[in-house]
């Protein structure tokens, strides 16, 4: 059993894993971080989206050994029940979820959209970039509104930590 070093939500972990384990399984079963969901297990739905070294990835399509020595951010790492992240607040305000199954992946994808496109990202870009995240409930309309509002509320801040992100674009690409 290989041992890997993973920093998850800022906390370093040393974990013994099966060499074949997927990142999503190590997060859910190894570390008990069950906020990251598995919808399809075939790289289509995006329910398993987490950030690896700051970029959105499908954790069902990353081997845990590939993440050895790297940093992972999951839905548990962005806010707490008492202090939600601005993107989470936006999903609540805009009714961006119904059953909630896709929501952790939608929020992590939304944060990646905000990181790359800045606070005034428009609806066309958000719709285009949600290509890899499926929702069986909402019809997407409110998710798109939530991501735009969340990006606006973040105002170019870093995803976690709050300080302004020096690399954040300030003008929308749309």
């Amino acid at each position, binding site marked *: 059993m*290989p041992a890997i070093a993973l920093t998850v939500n800022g906390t370093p972990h040393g974990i013994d894993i099966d*060499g*074949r384990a*997927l990142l999503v399984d190590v997060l859910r079963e190894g570390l008990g971080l069950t906020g990251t969901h598995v919808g399809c*297990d*075939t*790289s289509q739905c*995006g329910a398993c*989206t987490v950030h*690896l070294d700051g*970029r*959105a*990835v*499908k954790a069902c*399509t*990353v*081997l845990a*050994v*590939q993440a*050895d020595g790297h940093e992972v951010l999951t839905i548990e790492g962005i806010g707490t029940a008492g202090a939600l992240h601005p993107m989470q607040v936006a999903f609540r305000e805009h009714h961006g979820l119904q059953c909630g199954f896709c929501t952790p992946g939608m929020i992590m*994808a939304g944060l*990646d*959209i905000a990181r*790359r496109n800045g606070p005034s990202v428009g609806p066309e870009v958000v719709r285009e*970039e*949600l*290509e*890899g*995240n499926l929702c069986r409930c909402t019809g997407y309309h409110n998710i798109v509104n939530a991501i735009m509002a969340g990006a606006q509320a973040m105002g170019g801040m870093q995803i976690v930590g709050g300080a302004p992100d020096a690399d954040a674009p300030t003008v929308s690409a749309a």
Partner: protein
Amino acid sequence: MFPFDYHRPDSLDAARVLVAAGDDIKFLAGGQTLIPTLKQRLAAPGGLVDLAGIASLRGIAVGPGSVTIGAMTPHADVAEHAGLRAVLPALAGLAGLIGDPAVRNRGTLGGSLANNDPTADYPAACLAFDAVILTSGREIPAGLFFLGLFETALEPDEAIVAVRFPIPRRAAYEKFPNPASRYAMAGVMVAETADGVRVAVTGAGQSGVFRWEEAETALEAGFIVSALDGLQLPAEDMIADIHGSGAYRARLAWVMARRAVARLA
């Protein structure tokens, strides 16, 4: 998934030694094709040699006359690179049409070419721009690299290191994505190069990417949309599946070619 050994060497030489050590050892790049294949047990390599630890395989160099992109450069980096967007926007734009953002954050140029999926996007750019595939042992012109469905000129222990794309005078890529998978139902790169017009079609052909020479000749005679009037790809050579017939794909490729020319003319 069947069990495998995992290695992440930090040099190309070490990677080649590891891969040559057995006949069932494969390179791993972004894993966006290989990991799903392993999960379905369609492949059962004894070992994986992850190329992600080799820093020199990643990056984009914009030089006079050509652009060189490292094999491990993810699609997202190609799509977002300001220097590339300035000199060869058709290539950056093509990368931005691959899959979705999470796939683009992991999937790589080298992985896409080595896989040679008949519906992948990059092969069209390689053929249209007359790119050169730089491997661990040699330089392979794109025209000799793609050998049919999922087949390339690569030896089993040969790694793609980088791809050199000569910069065409102008080029445009038009893609009709499969609405579910985002792979191309038909994708056409039209390029005007120093050696003439080149038209490469992906997504449609039964043996993968190909050059549409009839369209090239027609466009050399006059670079206008109507030059393509009356041209028709042979339906029997096109992919026919649940997503569309051969005749549908032939027509789609023609429409994509017209749109690409319209963007340039």
